[in-house]
């Protein structure tokens, strides 16, 4: 039984508008000042495309970042969105507070591997455990770019860099850290795989709770050697997707049975009714099984695979701001009448203290 699918969206183009009446231009940012060929630029473009295709009004998005190359990039997308570029490693706390201003807004944070896995590890993990409703992208290149190429905490052991020698320490796996901190959405992608990046961004935005998206994003200037884990060549050769991903917004309800053979797909319905369709590749991977996700990450680490896709999702847990019994009107639009208790209540307090 098939419900008729809506007409396919018109091909994208700058003159076309989406269902929010916006052109793609309305989602653009300032010209990037990052290096030519930087993976981060490609991710910024996919953020633009995802938001456009999801028909989100740019004013209804907040952007956050810390410090570093990745954290510069919110300037290069969504000019019409509010943003706050905070301190190194401390974007999570900034975003946590800001999320309470108006809970109807979407939030996208962009961080780097230094910003998240070194200086910001503590705040990152607490943001995750609180299930703050936001998409948290880590543009992960294993290296500090703006300070000219030092190792970051995600650099693989044994990596040699020009002025740094050989990295003697084991790397931090951001997806693993997110998962053990009880993240409700964990995904990994590769900047060289724009389609997957875009679909995971969409799914992360639609997810109600923390969505950690670790994107291996090669640094073409300091860490793009053929054999480096965070390079284009290595990534292209070693990327092992868990599944093929499609994102179906709530408005575009389709009947899966018509498109896929039974047993070949797994659907995950997100909070807003949209669906992530995971098409089975080699093996059947269940992203709602935390144990399997941990196992897979461990296996990928041992085998040196760049495994990408939706690693884990749990749509059942409330997001941070759901826990506060907040009114329907955004807190930041409440008036004095709603915020200042009446005089009699203070008279009573004074009387009790007399």
């Amino acid at each position, binding site marked *: 039984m098939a419900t008729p699918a809506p007409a396919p969206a018109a091909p994208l183009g700058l003159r076309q508008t989406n269902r929010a009446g916006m052109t793609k231009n309305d989602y653009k940012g300032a010209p990037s000042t990052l290096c030519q060929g930087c993976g981060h630029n490609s991710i910024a473009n996919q953020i633009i495309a995802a938001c456009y295709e999801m028909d989100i009004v740019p*004013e209804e998005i907040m952007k956050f970042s810390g410090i570093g190359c990745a954290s510069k990039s919110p300037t290069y997308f969504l000019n019409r969105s*509010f943003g706050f570029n*905070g301190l190194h490693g*401390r974007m999570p706390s900034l975003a946590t507070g800001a999320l*309470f201003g108006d809970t109807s807004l979407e939030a996208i944070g962009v961080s780097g591997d230094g910003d998240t896995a070194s200086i910001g590890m503590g705040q990152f993990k607490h943001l995750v455990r609180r299930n703050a409703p936001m998409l948290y992208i880590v543009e992960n290149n294993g290296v500090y770019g703006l300070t000219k190429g030092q190792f970051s905490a995600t650099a693989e052991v044994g990596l040699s860099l020009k002025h740094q020698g050989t990295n003697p320490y084991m790397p931090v796996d951001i997806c693993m850290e997110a998962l053990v901190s009880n993240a409700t959405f964990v995904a990994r992608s590769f900047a060289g795989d724009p389609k997957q990046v875009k679909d995971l961004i969409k799914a992360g935005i639609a997810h109600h709770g923390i969505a950690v998206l670790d994107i291996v994003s090669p640094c073409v200037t300091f860490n793009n050697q053929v054999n480096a884990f965070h390079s284009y060549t290595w990534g292209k050769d070693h990327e092992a997707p868990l599944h093929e991903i499609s994102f179906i917004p709530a408005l575009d309800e389709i009947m899966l049975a018509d498109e896929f053979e039974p047993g070949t797909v797994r659907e995950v319905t997100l909070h807003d009714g949209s669906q992530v369709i995971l098409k089975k590749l080699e093996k059947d991977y269940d992203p709602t099984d935390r144990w399997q996700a941990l196992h897979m990450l461990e296996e990928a680490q041992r085998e040196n695979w760049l495994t990408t896709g939706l690693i884990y999702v749990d749509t059942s847990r409330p997001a941070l701001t759901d826990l506060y019994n907040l009114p329907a009107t955004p*807190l930041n639009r409440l008036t004095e009448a709603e915020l200042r208790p009446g005089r009699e209540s203070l008279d009573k*307090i004074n009387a009790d203290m007399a």
Partner: protein
Amino acid sequence: MSEKIINDFSITVATVNGSGSQTANTVLLRALFKMGIPVSGKNLFPSNIQGQPTWYTIRVNKDGFTARRDEHEIVVTMNPASFARDLESVQPGGVFFYADDIKTPITRGDISIYPMPVKQLIKGADVSPKLLDYIANMVYVGILAHILAIPLDKIREALMVHFKGKEKAVDSNFITIKSSAEWAAQNLKKSDSFYVEPMDKTSGLIMADGNTAAALGAIYGGVQFVAWYPITPASSLAETMNEYLPQLRKNADGKNTYAVLQAEDELAAVGMTIGAGWAGLRSMTSTSGPGLSLMTEYAGLAYYAETPIVIWDVQRIGPSTGMPTRTSQGDLNLAYFMGHGDTNQVILLPGSVSECFEFGWRAFDIAERLQTPVFVLIDLDYGMNQWMTEPFQYPDAPMDRGKLLWEEELNNLAGNWGRYRDVDGDAITYRTLPGNKHPAAAWFARGTGHDENAKYSEDARTWEKNMARLARKYDTARQYVPKAVIEDDGNEVGILAYGSVIPAVEEARILLQQAKGPKTDFLRLRALPCTPEVQEFVKKHKRIYCVEANRDGQLKQILTIAMPTEAAKFRYAGHSDGLPLTAAWVKNAILSQEVE
């Protein structure tokens, strides 16, 4: 027996930390307060959960002086570990009460001694065994009540306040108090000279601690977001919010008009506070020195990004852990300059518990008007001790949300605005909040160089121009912060002080005259930057004594910078050992510099 000494002495109670003596002590304090006698109480406690010696001192003073004294006329000890030291500390002619299971020999003949059969008197108490230690403290309340003539009905009223009207808790304590008082009536013969008598000097006043006042002030100021991390002596500020907010701040649908979040540390607490402030919420955090240190980088960003937030600093003494349960005014310089680069922060300095309430709400108006962090500095002595104070005054001004542009205002401006554009000439610019749907509403807050439209900029002129505007904005702040309170009779000598040293200064001014020292004028500073009358006061006087509870005279340093031509006038008359200043010390510190 010598002449009666009425309503003019200090009581010190020595107990074991964690034994529940706080209830007994605050009940004594409030009973005296309810008799109409001016009192003050100070908890001098160790950094310890249970087991270390702790002291509570109550000053009873018919003239209304509330500063700490070094002398104690009446000492009660329940603690074998501090017994010898407690006995030694009694003033000649004073009184010593002790739990009679402590078998240390009594070595003094110049004081009145009352043994208290604590174990015997709690035998019949109707409480669970684990509460027996706690009830034991009620014994000294009852015996002291009898010896000093505190009416038991006042004790019961005080218990009712303490237990918020819960009769069962009141009764289980009161029974022991009453039986102890009866025992004293039958078995102790009064041999000392100390009495209390009812007065009418506390009517119209309340008794509260500064942290509670601050929390309530913030609630009546419409606080919407609180992020905090536990730290002595600030924790009870946030905890009091958690206690009162659910009662006071639900809307008609039973929804909360606020959110309180316990952060993972102070780095995060201030980050969250700034995020919420940027998003348009009345946002605050509360901490003490170590936490304030951790907040430094974000405070600098908030200054530069112009984000309104309120930071309460309940000061304790020392860098690092220092002495975490002892008081000090040592964070003034840190707060004033907080942030790297060129930074000036706005600081409010409440001068009473009642003012903690007032500045609790006013701080938000000032922060949102100026779009900058506002620090409110108190200390452990104000924050955690109970003080007689004026009742909390309901805010006498509507909320000032500052220069905000919503959709309608942006429509009227046809979207032509710049986040950091000084259109009014007061260096305060307009801001929009996330959620504003106007297509020109959004802007990007950042710590990087930015132009009038909040766009990234590394242009030298743009940088300097913006920083110059921030300096002008700090000047504008002088119009909005609380003015100093001045008593000026045209004397040569002026005293400048703020916060919890004020009671000591007020008394010291009288002691100075009694000692044939100088007559003094007094300026009670309530904010930085200084309001214009501070400069006038300094210019008028030949010598200015800054009285502070810190080692280096931090206010003196700040004023020396602010008024270089007057710098030679400033003298320092303070010290910092973790204890609240005494009037005698302040008097001597001034007198010794006057005779030079």
